[in-house]
């Protein structure tokens, strides 16, 4: 793997991304929306006291925060419970970028001139993977930090500690990059077989279903957020999926297959 080739692809992809406003919106908007909804709820609770009947309805959830006032516990539950949706950003965004990149190049027939250079296919894929994964990773981290600081500022500094917990710091540093990588690889593998970005994204969209299912199960189970063990198990599962996708990708995205499937 020669870094110069990977860097050349990364820079080209990055230029493509920043000149594509629609795709750039797809990177930024989901992150902002996932952070804005719980922050808005926290702000509403901060501005309005909860009455006894409301507290009774969410008693099951606020029990996760036994040592803080009920109002802060409710805000804590909302802030941490919504964080599961932060995992959707690395699942959705890199796939959108990767499918757009590969299929866009297939349709523009710009893959063949690249494959005709001395660059290896692995170097091409590494550059594309970095370019698709990094924006989502950075966006997730920026929104995560802003989310923790903003909620602490508008309600109670202890909310910042709930967000920057060991569990979520571990998830941000391990699970989020792994999901980004899996999302990109799956996007590339699917894109190598089809010539329509929408079809690729629909097939790849199955990645988000387990994450949403986890978030919903967590809410109805009355669990405010994941445990450290759950995050580590998640790391292992996603790492296994990455291994499987790499094995499939090595034959799905070879020079000959791509050229014989060009639109």
């Amino acid at each position, binding site marked *: 793997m020669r870094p*110069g*080739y990977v860097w*050349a692809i990364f*820079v*080209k992809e990055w*230029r*493509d991304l920043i*000149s*594509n406003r629609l795709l750039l919106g797809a990177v930024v908007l989901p992150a902002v929306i996932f952070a804005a909804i719980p922050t808005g709820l926290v702000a509403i609770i901060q501005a309005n006291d909860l009455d006894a009947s409301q507290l009774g309805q969410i008693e099951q959830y606020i029990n996760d925060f036994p040592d803080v006032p009920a109002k802060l516990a409710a805000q804590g539950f909302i802030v941490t419970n919504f964080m599961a949706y932060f995992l959707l950003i690395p699942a959705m965004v890199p796939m959108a970028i990767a499918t757009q990149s590969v299929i866009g190049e297939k349709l*523009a*027939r*710009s*893959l*063949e*001139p*690249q*494959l*005709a*250079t*001395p*660059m*290896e296919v692995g170097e091409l894929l590494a550059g594309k993977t970095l370019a698709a994964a990094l924006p989502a990773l950075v966006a997730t981290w920026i929104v995560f930090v802003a989310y923790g600081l903003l909620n602490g500022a508008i309600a109670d500094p202890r909310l910042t500690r709930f967000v920057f917990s060991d569990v979520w710091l571990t998830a941000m540093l391990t699970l989020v990059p792994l999901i980004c990588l899996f999302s990109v690889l799956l996007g590339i593998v699917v894109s190598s077989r089809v010539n329509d970005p929408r079809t690729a994204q629909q097939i790849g969209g199955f990645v988000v279903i387990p994450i949403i299912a986890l978030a919903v199960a967590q809410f109805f189970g009355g669990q405010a957020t994941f445990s450290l063990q759950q995050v580590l198990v998640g790391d292992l599962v996603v790492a296994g999926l990455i291994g499987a996708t790499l094995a499939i990708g090595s034959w799905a995205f070879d*020079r*000959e297959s791509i*050229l*014989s499937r060009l639109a």
Partner: protein
Amino acid sequence: MIVVEGLRRDFGRVTAVHDLSFSVADGEIFGLLGPNGAGKTTTVRMLAGLIRPTDGSATVNGHAIGSGSQRIRAFTGILTESPGLHDKLTARQNLEFYGRLYGMHGRRLHDAVQRYLGVVGMDEHADRRVGGFSKGMRQKVAIARALLHEPEVIYLDEPTSGLDPSAAKTVRDFVATLRELGRSIVVCTHNLDEAERLCDRIAIMNGTLLRVGTPAALRRHGRNATVRVELNGARGPEWFLEVLARLPWVLGAQPRDDRSLLVELSEPHVETPDLVAALVGAGARITGVREEAATLEEVYLRLVGEAGERDATGAAA
């Protein structure tokens, strides 16, 4: 130098190319002519190290395709059928990107980009996005991309497609200068006139090689050159047949009509002046002399048609 021996490529049950053998010397422009689906692009992709042959072998400057494909790609320039540029990047950014993929950096890359933007007449548009370019402008940038790293072997698929006559001439002239630099150049084209003007030798193919030769040899299609002599005097064509029979380099002669003769020669460029002198010496009044040859188009259509008939007969049998 390119040497191809018995190359074959199958895609599943479909054979795109079979029994293909030819060679291209250093400093030669070699044309590949054939109908759509004749296997020209597949041949170029195999020779450029993009896909492996199913059978047969080929070497490009001594490197075998397959095992030496990465090395081959490093000294090969390819103009693909479609320009395949990146619309969101400027012409300069496109060339810089490909230059880096060919291992160029710094001053060398900068100078090469500037030079080839000038060669194809795109320096004024260098910093505009390619997405807004016309087909011809894209083609020019794609040509610059194929030549940027000073490749030793160059494959050009329809190089003047979409270009106006002036730009097409510029490209043809530039390709001719590459020949003088000793580069091996393979041109795939449907443009018979261009092939004839540009190529030293032409291969007509349709899945396999149908015929290869210089444009002049192809026009004769394996026959001797025939020169038509127009006469305007008291003596008719028959009168001169005896004179012509005494000339050893005349391979045959016959009246075409009562005003002209058809004379077969082996080297018309050399022998035609002597033929005219001999006829004038015998009292002929000549109003015109020209070589009677089939056009390349006629030869091409005949060969491709015959190949099609053979395939149809074989399939029926």
